[in-house]
């Protein structure tokens, strides 16, 4: 069998690793430590990476034989359920984007699991943690392989469960408990709405396969048929899943709270896991294109998130959160691209995003672990002693802001071009430019507050950390710096004169320079103006607190559910319970009358019942 033909094994390797972790359940292997579970998972993840890389390489050697080879993607089929006319199959399809995604996912997992060995050096919870990481990888690989919207839902839901487990790694800690709960429930809301859409979709389209849906949509357009009634609602339901996964407003709360999980899992979550939602969204694009309403919703949701989340990120004092809100912001831009029908731009935004984000988080992780704080106000002055990590962070930041020749520039420029050609050119391109400026500023602010300025008591001693964390970070740094070359090499962008330069290049560059430059001026050296945001006091606090979204949820959704639950419990006590206590009381009375001597009332009552049945039978017999 070829590497390509057996690519369905890739999600299974890490799954085996995750199962292996069960050996270290309490009471099984306890006289020795849990570290082998990590090594086993790393091994399985590496095998998965090797396999997907080999498959990717053999695919591109196929492509040398001709375009046709690429467009004859191998497929595999596995029927999960077949009953009463319903057949649900996994319908794996090995496409080139899928393989690229899979290679990125598995490769990043390898790096992150190595990183985790260092980061969690002092931790005893390896089996659960590494098992959960591998579980994530299995889910994501499955997601890029399946051609079924149903299995996409299934896998997204499993990722939700994985999030719960992994955020719950440190289950003794109170905020972890809360974070795990909120992450699970918020994502589940999105998932359930998605499920409703998935369920409603089938009777309409007769298929759950993305390619089938594409065909159905094409039929609809070609025959100029009207949209089926309720179809727009179904579409809205379908995009709810990606919205939850991509932490878009109003389902963005969980990402912030999920930051209570160990940092290595944050690296993966903020880079590839959130992308899972975007992946599904992109595959639904042919359906979305049918409805201008839904497109508009995407633009509004994505645009709002992009702008607001980058503002919130600017106000954060916790370094993990400062980066996590940027995740929402960037993916908001992707939503805008999908909403504007720019599937190419969205693809590219998706392509250039994960690695720089992972790189920044990994470099920040090495700082957090050695300096015992995530508080940006307690960090500073690390450039001279932690330069490698500073460079890594800068490379990651450059890869996300619109700064040529780095990775993110071309994709952002395409988005800007798309916005400029849309129906609302001024508003939308303004949105993109402002978001980009804010994003750049937020990234530079994090860099300045950690590496710039003067050392604080928390950073007075800050040696570089264990090689197990530095090495993967450096490898990723190399990779991130090479993304533009890779993209040019693969023909995604042209070199003119820098990768992906084109119309609207100058405004984008300008917005980056304004944003990053202002921020650098504020934060790189201890500048009196750096106190300005805190001088605004309330505003920064309000932003840092995520504009009190949590409180809002508490007053609305949570209050509603709790209120309803309390009401139904009350009515249960008053009506149903009261009623049956009443009847119970009558029955007790009857039993008491029947028997004055015995003490076992219920037995007596049972006896009387049996007698009744027998009498009835006797009466029947005698008839």
């Amino acid at each position, binding site marked *: 069998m070829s590497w390509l033909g057996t690519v369905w094994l890739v999600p299974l390797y890490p799954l085996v690793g995750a199962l292996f972790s069960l050996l270290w*359940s309490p009471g099984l292997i306890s006289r020795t430590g849990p570290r082998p579970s990590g090594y086993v998972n790393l091994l399985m993840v590496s095998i998965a990476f090797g396999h997907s890389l080999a498959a990717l390489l053999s695919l591109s050697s196929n492509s040398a034989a001709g375009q046709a080879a690429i467009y004859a993607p191998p497929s595999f089929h596995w029927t999960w359920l077949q009953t*009463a006319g319903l057949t649900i199959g996994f319908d794996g399809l090995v496409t080139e984007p899928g393989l690229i995604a899979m290679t990125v996912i598995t490769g990043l997992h390898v790096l992150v699991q190595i990183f985790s060995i260092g980061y969690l050096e002092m931790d005893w919870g390896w089996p659960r943690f590494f098992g959960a990481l591998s579980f994530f990888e299995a889910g994501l690989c499955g997601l890029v392989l399946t051609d079924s919207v149903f299995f996409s839902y299934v896998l997204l839901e499993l990722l939700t*469960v994985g999030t719960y487990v992994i955020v719950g790694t440190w*289950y003794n800690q109170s905020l972890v408990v809360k974070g795990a709960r909120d992450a699970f429930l918020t994502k589940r809301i999105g998932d359930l709405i998605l499920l409703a859409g998935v369920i409603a979709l*089938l009777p309409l389209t007769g298929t759950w396969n993305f390619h089938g849906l594409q065909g159905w949509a094409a039929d609809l357009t070609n025959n100029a048929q009207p949209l089926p009634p309720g179809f727009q609602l179904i579409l809205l339901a379908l995009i709810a899943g990606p919205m939850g996964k991509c932490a878009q407003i109003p389902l963005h709360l969980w990402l912030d709270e999920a930051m209570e999980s160990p940092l290595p899992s944050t690296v993966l979550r903020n880079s590839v896991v959130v992308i899972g939602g975007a992946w599904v969204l992109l595959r639904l694009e042919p359906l979305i294109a049918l409805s201008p309403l839904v497109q508009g919703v995407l633009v509004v949701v994505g645009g709002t998130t992009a702008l607001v989340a980058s503002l919130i990120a600017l106000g954060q004092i916790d370094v993990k959160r400062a980066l996590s809100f940027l995740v929402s912001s960037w993916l908001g831009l992707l939503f805008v691209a999908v909403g504007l029908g720019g599937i190419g731009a969205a693809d590219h935004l998706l392509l250039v995003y994960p690695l720089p984000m992972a790189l920044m988080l990994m470099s920040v992780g090495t700082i957090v672990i050695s300096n015992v704080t995530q508080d940006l106000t307690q960090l500073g002055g690390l450039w001279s002693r932690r330069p490698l990590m500073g460079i890594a962070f800068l490379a990651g930041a450059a890869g996300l802001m619109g700064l040529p020749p780095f990775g993110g520039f071309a994709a952002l420029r395409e988005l800007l071009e798309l916005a400029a050609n849309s129906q609302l050119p001024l508003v939308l391109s303004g949105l993109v430019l402002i978001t980009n400026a804010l994003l750049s500023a937020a990234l530079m602010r994090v860099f300045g507050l950690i590496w710039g300025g003067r050392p604080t008591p928390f950073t007075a001693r800050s040696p570089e950390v264990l090689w197990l964390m530095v090495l993967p970070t450096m490898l990723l740094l190399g990779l991130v710096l090479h993304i533009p070359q890779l993209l040019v090499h693969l023909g995604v962008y042209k070199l003119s004169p820098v990768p992906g330069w084109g119309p609207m290049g100058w405004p984008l560059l300008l917005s980056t320079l304004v944003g990053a430059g202002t921020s650098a001026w504020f934060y790189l050296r201890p500048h009196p103006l750096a106190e300005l945001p805190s001088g605004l006091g309330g505003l920064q606090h309000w932003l840092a607190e995520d504009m009190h979204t949590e409180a809002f949820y508490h007053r609305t959704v949570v209050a509603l*559910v709790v209120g309803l639950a309390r009401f139904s419990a009350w009515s249960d006590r008053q009506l149903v319970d009261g009623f049956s206590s009443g009847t119970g009381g009558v029955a007790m009375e009857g039993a008491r009358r029947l028997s004055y001597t015995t003490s076992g009332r219920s037995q007596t009552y049972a006896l009387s019942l049996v007698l009744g049945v027998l009498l009835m039978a006797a009466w029947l017999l005698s008839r």
Partner: protein
Amino acid sequence: MDLLLLLLIPLLAGLLLPLLPAGSPWVRRGALAAALLQLLDGLWLWQHPPAALSANWLPRLGLRLELGLDGLTMPLVLLAALLTAMAVMASPVDQSRPRLFFALMLATNVGLIGAFLARNALLFLLAYELILIPTTLLVATWGGERRAGAAIRFLTYGAVSGVALLAAVLALGWLQPGGLNFSYTALADHNLTALQQRWILALVLLAFGLKLPVVPLHGWQPITYSQAPTPVAMLMSGVVSKLGAYGLLRFGLEFLPDAWAAWSPWLAAVGALSAIYGSLNAIVQLDMRRLVAYSSLGHMGMLLLALAAATPLSLQGVIAQMLAHGLIIALLFCLVGLIELRTGTCAIPELSGLLNPQRGLPFTLGLMLLALLAAAGVPGLAGFVAELLVFEGSWVAFPWPTLVCLLASGLTAVYAIRLFNRVGFGRLDNERADWVSTSWGERTPALVLTALVLVAGLWPSMLTGFSETATAPLALRSSDAVTVIAMAPATVNSAQLPA
């Protein structure tokens, strides 16, 4: 004869057990052996379908010993046998008054199997009534502090249900044109007028709605489940309540289809109400057993929705939900029982941090997480398969109630996570943590059930494979357009992608 064996094994064992000397370990082992033997027999019969059995018993009464096993009852018989075995295993080794206890458990089993095997309405009725007595005694004798009240209430509701069923069965039998006839074959011929069907259906709904239960007939359930000893709760919630669903399927849908079809929108609404009501109530419960009880109420609501929809797919969903819920709820009660056995409490506020690997109950809690996720309908576990079939099957018939049930399914996640967060996560209260960890013997039933829940989730034909031919003829509606085109790779290449 094969069929009779299914009944005779527990019957004989139940009669012989009391003859053993008190305190003999063989009482528990004997009960377990009987249940396992019955399970084996059931599995054998599954592979070698037996001929139906028919013999005269009391011909004047229309009572014939008609027994049969079809795709509808096969899985339920297996479930009953399995859960009896698991319940016996889950009973404490030092069970008080073991001879009576296990004899009553086996008596319940006899009643259950009898009801499932019966092909005669009167026989069904007798078995149905038979179950009430041992279960009541089990709750009344071995239950929790408020067992007397619980038993009374259970018995009251059960008696009402029994009387309603009695009336319904008698009416069904009397109204047959060929004279008194309780045979299912006769009843399935639908010889009743619409008015007659409606009256009888009202009785049937009352009878089985109480047993299932659905809102607002569930008054007995929380207190009974919370007071019943663990094995009894497993058996009652796992199988006895399924008798309600089975009864609705058989007596309502099969025997009274016209009335059923006429009332099904209302039934769907009641189902949706039950689902949301049960889930909402479960959210605020402070007692694990009551929480599980309300969760069961919610799932029974979904079952009713699927029954009301009565499409081929939703009926498959009914069977799947009966099995999945039977396994999951028994597992939940089993685990809650284990926690209670060790910590001495079911009160959620008093527990925390049980995941602690050294002094908590990490093994139990690990299984608990799986069980709760299964109850919450997370993919990969049995509950999801059932819910998917229910939703997909009911959507075409009743979209709004289905949506409400979906919402209820979201709320199941709320209580599941709330329970696990409070009980599993957090810091263990060390003052309380003075217990020994669970033994492998105690873990076995939970392990077996977990394995089944997992396998059924990954390989759903375990839930649906039994019954497809049996449910299809019962469908009132077709599940229009519900066919998923299994996209063959070749068609993908040629049709959708540029060459």
